[in-house]
């Protein structure tokens, strides 16, 4: 069959598509039908089953901030996933409490998804509520004023635009808050 397809272009094209489609369909269309948690927003009231909480849809302001995050390509350097690695749960943790790992049901309202592939800066999947507005303002103006050695670019055009800045901070404060896992919600001063 393969030998013959070397002489017969339609047979060849048909075979090539069929071969590709087997894996193509089984890995894209089938998984969300098998694993329903991909499409069901997180909700848990039973503390014995893990952190309680509920995933809320984004507000308009948070969506505006998210659009800025996408526009500026923040996701090229900041991942949004606390992986199933001990170090990730410690690094995403807060004041000695480890963060829960990220689960598919926490991202149901995300489009575009912002999981990221490169971690040039720290992961942001649990950054919400860790730093207050003033911290973010200073940090966006010049990250090195707060974090010496940082290589994050300055974003004066966000920090100096009150509307954009408020939206951006609203989005950041939302990140990772569906699960209540922290001892308190104090900001870093």
């Amino acid at each position, binding site marked *: 069959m393969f030998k013959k397809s*070397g*002489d017969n*272009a339609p047979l*060849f*094209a048909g*075979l*090539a*598509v069929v*071969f*590709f*489609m*087997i*894996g*193509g369909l*089984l*890995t*894209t269309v089938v*998984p*969300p039908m*098998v*694993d329903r948690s*991909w*499409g069901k927003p997180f909700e848990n009231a039973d503390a014995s089953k893990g952190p309680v909480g509920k995933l809320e849809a984004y507000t308009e302001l948070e969506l505006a901030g998210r659009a800025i995050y*996408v*526009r*500026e*390509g*923040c996701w090229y*350097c900041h*991942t949004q*996933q606390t*992986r199933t*690695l001990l*170090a*990730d749960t410690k*690094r995403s943790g807060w004041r000695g409490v480890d963060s829960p790992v*990220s689960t*598919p049901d926490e*991202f*149901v*309202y*995300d489009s*575009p*998804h912002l*999981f*990221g*592939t*490169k*971690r*040039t*800066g720290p992961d942001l999947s649990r950054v919400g509520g860790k730093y207050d507005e003033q911290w973010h303002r200073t940090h966006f103006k010049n*990250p*090195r004023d707060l974090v*010496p*050695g*940082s*290589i994050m*670019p*300055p974003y004066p*055009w966000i920090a100096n635009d009150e509307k954009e800045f408020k939206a951006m901070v609203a989005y950041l404060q939302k990140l990772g808050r569906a699960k209540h896992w922290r001892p308190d919600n104090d900001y870093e001063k």
Partner: protein
Amino acid sequence: MAQEKQTVHSAAATSGAAVHEDTTAKWFLISAVVYFLIVGVVAIIIAAKFVWPEMLGTVAMLSYGRLRPLHVNGMLFGWLLAADMGLTYYLVPRLCGVKLWSEKLGVATALLWNVIILGAVVSLLMGWNQGWEYAELPLPLDVLVVVAWIMFGINVFATVATRKYQQMYVSLWYTMGCILWTAFVYLTGNFATLFTTGVNQANLNWMYVHNAVGLIFTPVGLALAYYFIPKAGNIPLYSHKLSMIGFWSLAFFYVWTGAHHMIHGPISQWLQTISIAFSLMLIMPVWSVVYNLFATMKGHWPRTRDNVPLKFLMSGVVFYLLTCFQGPMHSLRSVNAIVSKTDWIPGHAHMAVLGAFSFFAIAGTLYVIPRMFNVKLHSDALANWSYWLFMVGGIGFFVTLWLGGFWQGWQWNNPSIPFIDTVKALKPIWIVRFFSGIFMLGGIVAFLYNVIATVVDSAGAKPEVQGA
């Protein structure tokens, strides 16, 4: 195996019969090498920003987050895919022993492609970014890409349909496979994603990202390697049977591996395991291709000494072997826990796109430009210089980022080290990467100058020919 060693030569020997215009190939190739330089400059700027983060930092359009997608899309679509398409327009008619089905359609495709690239430059600088890796371009441009791809596909398939040689050489299989698979892969990554959210969308996005390399750049790149290695070296291909194993195993295995971009991440464990198993099986298509090409060169390696295209091609095969060994290895959970999301990844990605596939495209360009313009290559010495600049820059880039990536990964896995210290630790790595980039840019300049000078030489030579 004796009777299997054929096709490229039987086809090539008689291909002189059809007179090829190559207008489309010329358009694609020349615009591609120009984008190669422009985007190379962007690459240097973003490499510099790792070392001097304030540089050009207060101009929104020139910030890292805007220039990085310009670099990635520019290199992938402006340079590499355009060069691959140009070379396809060159080799398909020759392998079929007929003229290209329609030069008019081809030139229109080249023009449309340039419109897309210029549109991409404007959109990405403006921040009109859809937020998906490799699929950043806004929807209208995505639609134009689909139109251009259909125009390209029609031309190639119509040429194949009118071919004089019944048996299709392996380069034709890879070209046709690339066109068919890309159609589905591109639609998945740029259109199906619109109707999904969260992990489901990420799964489609990474199916596309992974297969953009695996089922677009790999097959079209291998089509070039299978065509130009026997041609440039003047050696028959070692085995038809191995080509077949390599092709059909690629067609079947590659598409299963997208989820390996989310290992340890918020995606079903069983899907991660499937992607890991199939990532390991990729060794099959890769090693059968690499064995075939090495066996073809057996006894003929001295020919790489003064044959620059062959040198690029065989180095590309070595880089292909290495990058495709890394891929399966860092899909393993234990390795992935160290290298994933680190600077190892750009080291790996650049070896695939620059070291393997761009080397094939550069070799092809250096081989076909003199033949299309009926003149000698402007300077073999300069071509050799560009080879060594790419090689030194490339090795400097790849190796330092691998070391840096492991270093970074080990530090991340020790949570007592503050994150910022893992950033500071990488500074020497980024300095070396910047200077390696300067070498690569030198390679691009030498390559571009050589191509343009060859074309100019041909313009100067024409009146003589006509006068005689």
